Each structure stands twice: as C-alpha cells, then as structure tokens.
C-alpha cells in the first residue's frame, strides 16, 4: 500500500510518501495509525493527537473506521485550509 503525508504530518514524519505491505492484523485506518505510531519518533509525534488528523483512502475522505487493504492509497493530513 502507498502512504502519503501532507502539511505538518509530512514535516513531523519527514516522509512525503512511502510504500509498505499491510502490517499484520491491520484492517482499518485506526489499526494502520496504531502501527505507524508504534514506529515512535516523528511518527508518534505526528499521530499524537488523532483528533486533528484527517485521512483519505483512495483519494476519498473517510473516517478512522474505514477498511484498508494492500494496494490502497492512504493519505494523512490536517483539516484542509485552501480557498
């Protein structure tokens, strides 16, 4: 699966894009976030307050309870501020 990070999530993780295999036992966004957080460092920091993190799976806004599968494109970002 492809994981993307934007805005301050990119700055904290120091990663804009990475490809990884679906971690074992992970079925939804919440599970994926827990797995990423477990890496510690910038990842733990980026997801410290999950309430201010938004997620898109395959370029659609979804909730943390949305399913994820290998092959998905998952993006993490703050609430949008364009316009």
């Amino acid at each position, binding site marked *: 699966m492809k994981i993307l990070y934007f805005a301050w999530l990119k700055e904290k993780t120091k990663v804009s894009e990475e490809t990884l295999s679906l971690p074992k036992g992970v079925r939804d966004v919440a599970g994926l976030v827990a797995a990423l957080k477990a890496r510690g460092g910038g990842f733990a920091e980026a997801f410290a307050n999950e309430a201010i993190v938004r997620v*898109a799976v395959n*370029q659609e806004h979804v909730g943390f309870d949305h399913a994820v599968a290998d092959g998905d494109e998952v993006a993490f970002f703050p*609430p949008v501020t*364009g316009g």
Partner: protein
Amino acid sequence: MIFVQEHDFDPGDEIAKLSAGNTHVGGVCVFVGLVRDFADDGALQAMTLEHYPGMTQKQLEAIEREALERWPLDATVIIHRYGRLQPGERIVLVGAASAHREAAFEACHFLIDWLKTKAPFWKKEETQGREHWVDAKHTDDAAALRWNKK
C-alpha cells in the same frame, strides 16, 4: 471546468467564458480569494499552498458536479492555485452562470464553502520570519454545513 495550477488566472476572461456563446445566461456570480497581508499573529510576508495532486482534481470535480446537480446552471468554474503566493495575489476563483440570479449566487457560494472544507489544500503562512501551518476555521465548517441536505 476545474483548473489546479501554479500560475495566475484572469478573472475577466473567466467571467466572459462562463456565458460565452450562451444567451440563456442571465447572471454570472464569481468569487475571487486573495492573499491578505495579515495573519492571526501579525503581518504576513507570503504563504505557500500545498495540495494532494491526485485527490484535488477529483474532489473539485465532485464539488462541481454536486453544484450542477443542485442548481439549474449553464456553466461553472473552479480555479485553485498552489505554490508560494504573496499578499494581493489571487488564490482561488469560483464562478457559476445561470438563467436565474439566485441559482448563480447560491451555487457560487456553495462552491467556495465546500471547497474550503473538502478540497485537499493546506496553507503555510510566513509571519515575522517564522513559518506555520494555518489551522482550519470552525467558521468554515459552519459555512459548509449549511449546504448539507436536510
């Protein structure tokens, strides 16, 4: 029409295009968003707009499609820039053309309100030599909520 681009645009051209060759149009409403010279914590030197390329186009198309379904429109346009912009520069333009004034107004208002909460853009402001990411505004969420179908 959707345009996500680094370069500037011409509002006069966009207004003209919204009714070009269509004399059924009775009203064109356009909103242009500009970079202001101030931020919450002082004078703003510049801002940088980051976006999620693959998703931006898709989301803006969905927002435009929703407007076209809700109102009797002849044409719509959304242009959003990204990259580094200085105070006074244009950021965004949304516009709608319709036979009816109310439809043009409401659709235009809807386009910018939904864009503000659904399109994946993020602003980083440069103030007092420091950079920081702009927080989302509750007022933007409230503005977008009014368009939710009852």
